[in-house]
């Protein structure tokens, strides 16, 4: 599968790159916890903490800002606290960036690449917007609904345990999505979910409507395989999102994360208009092989490494 992917990118002229996995900064997304490593030696005689990257996004964006052109990377990524049937704290990512692309063109390329990786050139593709699915499946207007409205829907559909939960608006959306919408996504093929609410923009730019983000995800058999953005390029907006993320992290009792000044510097210098996507390679391999536990495609999972 890896050979198929590398051959594809070589053919279409996307450069393979490597960026550091242990860095002095990391993504600030409140839903992602990086693992910490400790370095001590020349340059840092007193030692310094290094974050094992939750994705290679920031370093790759610095390359883009330096004029790399289209690039891809196949690497390991690390997420603290994540282990289960579909999660392992160390996993493999394929991430690539296309200057000049928007969401639509990138979705086309993801389709091509994933069909290739699955060795299934005819697998059907469908696309739905986040708001449409909530409307048709749950009769909910995701823009108007308050956290209380969403909680009421969870209770009405008797999600046992929801009655005692404290969640914010996006937390309730995540719960409803994972219960009532996601299991059906990609039942018959590849399913792209697009136009996430602006509150879940992550590192995507907002759409002109101001209430949705240029972000998409790919699902197959109810499993999340990829997440893509028409990237935010505005350095000031990025700095504000970092601050907001760290604020949110502290309110959740999680440590703040050192903000990546070099990325902000690169964005000020000029990140080209581009779209980028990260694909979970272990899950892609699961789909290709029909495995139903990530353990089946890893050499040694957390319990055995």
């Amino acid at each position, binding site marked *: 599968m890896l050979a198929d992917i590398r051959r594809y990118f070589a053919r279409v002229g996307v450069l393979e790159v490597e960026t550091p996995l242990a860095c002095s900064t990391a993504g600030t997304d409140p839903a992602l916890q990086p693992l910490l490593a400790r370095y001590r030696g020349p340059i840092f005689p007193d030692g310094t903490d290094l974050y094992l990257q939750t994705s290679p996004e920031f370093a790759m964006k610095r390359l883009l800002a330096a004029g790399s052109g289209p690039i891809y990377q196949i690497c390991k990524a690390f997420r603290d606290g994540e282990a289960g049937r579909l999660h392992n704290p160390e996993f493999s990512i394929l991430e690539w960036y296309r200057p000049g692309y928007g969401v639509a063109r990138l979705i086309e390329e993801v389709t091509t690449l994933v069909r290739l990786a699955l060795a299934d050139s005819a697998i059907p593709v469908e696309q739905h917007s986040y708001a449409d699915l909530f409307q048709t499946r749950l009769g909910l207007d995701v823009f108007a609904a308050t956290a209380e409205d969403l909680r009421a829907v969870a209770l009405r559909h008797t999600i046992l345990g929801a009655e005692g939960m*404290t969640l914010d608006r996006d937390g309730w959306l995540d719960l409803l999505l994972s219960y009532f919408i996601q299991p059906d996504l990609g039942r018959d093929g590849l399913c792209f979910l697009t136009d996430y609410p602006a509150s879940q923009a*992550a590192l995507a730019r907002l759409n002109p409507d101001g209430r949705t983000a240029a972000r998409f995800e790919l699902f197959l058999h109810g499993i999340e395989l990829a997440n893509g953005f028409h990237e935010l390029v505005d350095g000031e907006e990025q700095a504000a999102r970092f601050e907001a993320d760290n604020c949110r992290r502290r309110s959740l009792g999680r440590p703040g994360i050192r903000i990546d000044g070099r990325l902000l510097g690169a964005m000020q210098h000029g990140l080209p208009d581009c779209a980028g996507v990260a694909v979970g390679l272990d899950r892609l391999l699961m789909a290709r092989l029909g495995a139903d536990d990530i353990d089946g495609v890893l050499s040694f999972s957390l319990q055995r490494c």
Partner: protein
Amino acid sequence: MATYSTNEFRGGLKLLLDGDPCTIIENEFVKPGKGQAFNRVKIRNLKTGRVLEKTFRSGETVEAADVVDRNLQYLYNDGEFWHFMDDETFEQCQADANAMNEAAKWVKEQDICMVTLWNGAPIAVEAPNFVTLEITETDPGLKGDTSGGGGKPATLETGAVVRVPLFIQTGEKIKVDTRTGDYVSRIKDE
């Protein structure tokens, strides 16, 4: 009060939910790449036997239930309760018909049973997988029939009724699988 965090969830863990002791059958970690993590758990209520699915926000803590499984010796039934004893500590406890459930049909004095204790009191009793019981009543079968096909009902010393092959007679001992209620074999006295 002991508690467990969702990170400690695994099959067999005993929790106190809505006042009832429960055991985890299956625990699934559910997390969108960029969203809230949940634990979706399949749980059996140990008092009612009912299975339900419950969702927790990952990181929550849940009260632990003081539930242990012990191998205890069945002593006697006093008409209302079944009495058990721990062979090592000689501690005794009594189980009601609710806790005994199916096991009441199979156990006889001195059988070792798996007893689930909640705060020291039995809430569930499992009979041994195989028990040897004497037949107290069955129709006389045809001589020479050894095929076992068809069979006939037989009442056992505990009152349970099982189907046995035609050649089995009153007064004989048979081995029964308590999980299915099926006859396994005839036991010849040594």
